[in-house]
């Protein structure tokens, strides 16, 4: 295939060539960045929670005075434990993908000089860490004497379990067991490491920060009340949840059940990533529309060129060019234009990413997206030029003899 004559022809149609190339370039830039946004949203949606989500649910009570907590918790726990199918009910202040009650900044020294980041404190009663199903990879789980009564936001002093991700962040490369950290004046000592435990609100945190959690053992009381973690067989979950809500409503008519927050963890997770799902869907829509419009543009312009060059095609055919030669001519021409667009588009994709990074805290575009975007556009170009090129190849040589 000779490229020189194609380039010569393109030079005659500089304007149209540049237009199509620019369109491809813009499409390439948007395509790469949109794919990247979809991928990052999907990765957020698939964050590993480290807990037995299908087997867990929560019931959230409000509308009573903390001084009534002992009575309310006793009646609620009794009602929930009586529901057939419930394997365990425990108290836990924050719920993964649900209620968020323990977000606070920590320091790794008592003088509050070394800020350790903003983490999630899961304050739980006996049995709650086991119920979550979070695996301990080093050190030990909570012992009965670790669960102490407390007043205020959180216990002043406790032996705690932190996630591996938080340990790596606070003390990289060092054994975290026995290390200490502080939240204001409260003091905590690490006695165990959890494989992973997601925070209640993973969207809005970076992929590392999503897993910065700590489990603080404590006894129920005025400050750890009304937030229950239920464990049941996943297959029976919908019925158990229905029965549990009805049982609490019967047993405690005077308190308010927060029905939006009282759900299975599977449903809460689904809701947590609602916006990310919408955004990913929207991006897919944009990509589809984008590819369609680009393809239509190529079809339109290629058809125009074929119509314009009917006579020249006829002459080439009369001089011995095969149908295949004509077909390949238009295909190569398209390939050259699309390649020009892609070359420009890669620079543009990178520039767009830099602009988005500054405005939206998007990470840098991985280079792997560029060849994928390029391949998609090459395929699109070849597919859309096929119909006009076939029409060109069908031009009979006899056209050359007419009206020249």
């Amino acid at each position, binding site marked *: 295939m000779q490229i020189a004559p194609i380039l010569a022809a393109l030079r005659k149609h500089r*304007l*149209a060539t540049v*237009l*199509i190339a*620019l*369109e491809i370039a*813009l*499409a390439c*830039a*948007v395509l790469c960045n*949109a794919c990247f*946004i979809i991928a990052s949203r999907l990765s957020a949606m698939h964050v590993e929670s480290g807990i037995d989500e299908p087997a867990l649910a929560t019931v959230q009570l*409000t*509308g009573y*005075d*903390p001084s009534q907590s002992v009575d309310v918790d006793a009646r609620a726990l009794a009602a929930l434990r009586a529901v057939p199918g419930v394997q365990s009910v425990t108290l836990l202040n924050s719920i993964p993908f649900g209620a968020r009650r323990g977000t606070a900044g920590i320091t790794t020294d008592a003088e509050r000089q070394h800020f350790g980041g903003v983490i999630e404190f899961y304050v739980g009663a006996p049995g709650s860490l086991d119920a979550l199903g979070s695996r301990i990879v080093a050190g030990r789980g909570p012992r009965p004497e670790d669960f102490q009564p407390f*007043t*205020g*936001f959180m216990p002043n002093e406790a032996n705690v379990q932190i996630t591996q991700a938080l340990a790596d962040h606070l003390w990289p490369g060092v054994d975290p067991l026995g290390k200490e950290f502080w939240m*204001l*004046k*409260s003091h905590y000592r690490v006695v165990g490491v959890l494989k992973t435990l997601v925070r209640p609100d993973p*969207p*809005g*945190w970076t992929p590392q920060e999503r897993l910065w959690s700590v489990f603080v053992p404590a006894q129920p009381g005025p*400050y750890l009340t009304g937030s229950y973690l239920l464990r049941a067989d996943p297959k029976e979950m919908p019925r158990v949840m229905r029965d549990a809500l009805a049982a609490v*409503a019967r047993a405690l*008519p*005077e308190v*308010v059940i*927060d029905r939006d927050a009282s759900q299975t963890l599977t449903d809460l997770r689904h809701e947590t990533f*609602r*916006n990310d799902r*919408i*955004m990913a869907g*929207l*991006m897919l829509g*944009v990509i589809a*529309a*984008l590819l369609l*419009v*680009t393809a*239509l*543009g190529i*079809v*339109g*312009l290629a*058809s*125009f060129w074929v*119509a*314009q060059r009917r006579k020249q095609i006829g002459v080439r055919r009369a001089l011995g060019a095969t149908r295949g030669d004509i077909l390949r001519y238009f295909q190569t021409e398209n390939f050259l234009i699309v390649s020009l667009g892609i070359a420009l588009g890669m620079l543009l994709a990178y520039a*767009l990413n830099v602009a*988005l990074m500054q*405005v*939206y*805290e998007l990470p840098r575009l991985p280079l792997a997206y560029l060849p994928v975007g390029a391949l998609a556009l090459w395929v699109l170009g070849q597919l859309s030029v096929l119909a006009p090129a076939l029409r060109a190849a069908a031009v009979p040589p006899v056209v050359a003899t007419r009206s020249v």
Partner: protein
Amino acid sequence: MFTYYFDLALRSLKRNKVLTALMVLAIAVGIGASMTTLTVMHLLSGDPLPGRSGHIYYPQVDATPAGYTKGGPLDMLDYRSAVDLWSARRADRQALIAGSDVKVSAPGSNQPPVMRPMLATTADFFPMFDVPFRYGSSWTTADDAARARVAVISASLNDRLFGGRNSVGRTLHLKDSDVRIVGVLDAWRPSPLFYDVRGGRFAQGQTAGFYGKPEDVFMPFFGALEVNAGNFWQFTCWGKVTTPGRLQNQPCVWVGLWVQLESASRAADYRAFIASYAREQKALGRFAETRVRMMHLMQWLDFNHVVPSDVKLQTWLAFAFLAICLFNTIGLLLAKFLRRGGEIGVRRALGASRRAVFAQCLVEAGVVGLVGGIGGWLLTLAGLWLVRRQPVEYADMAHLDLGMFGVTFALAIAASLLAGVLPALRASRVTPALQLKTL
């Protein structure tokens, strides 16, 4: 001449239906996408108090210990500073605000109690923010001082508890107290819910929550602190909280103060007032810093980056998409005009000026834009319908108003004319002799 060109344009567009349809489709899709996002942007970045937002200010002082915060004061006030500034009455109007969830039931109703958001505020809140009433009216400043057990409720709570009837004078059970309803609001949906906007710069762009509905219960500030004690929300605290939800003597910021200042000189005076207050408190040893901040409403919204970053991202994408559609249209128009080279050559040979050919081509492009605009308008309506079906806080407000309807067509025609310029220039430069030879 214009009508003649218009007629010619219609004829020419009818001649090649596929190419015309492609162009109209490209413009319509581009306009539909960009107008949908632009309407949402317009909705989210608008002025919630048109005409008066310039007179509404949010004064802030800093009660945190030395070195606790970098930059300016925290987003809300501690109780004592807020009450001091409010009781000084140096502004034309002033309202304190604090938020909590309150347990609500109607005596005699068999509906179970529910938790509803309540705003503890002062009497000036309603006239200052131009809040519409359906029944009754606001409470008085005397009620503020007397810690009166009165309340104003939202239209939706009135519908829920009293079936939408005039409930002024009836009793509402809030937590453990009975309060008398003195007013019922009319439909009121400021966008964003400006007086509750705070902390936006720490929200990493997830600010859709700023566009929620107003609270369901409004109560005189000091009365509400007693009625719903133990449930008030803090913005943040710098020390251990010993009585959560009862924050009057806690190391926390949790009260907002909004003031109305009718002139620039009044605003300057008020600035001087809060600065002197901060110096005085530092002299008394209660403040470590004398930093103050006072922004007017729109500055404060801007400072809090109220428009969610997802919405901004969508708008960028939509306009990139419109640009692609435009390139597409330029290419197709070029193809269309140049294919008519012979026809244009004849016109030029018969004496038409370049300007006339250019005008004729532009009219044709404009007609494409007009038809594309109609398609774009329909697609925008469809797009907004999709937005309304999304579970986001501002979904119910996504409608195309008259202004944006006009913008749709203006944008469509402007885009198509822009796309038409280059091809029309090319067409007007056709050499008549060369074209006539090939006819």
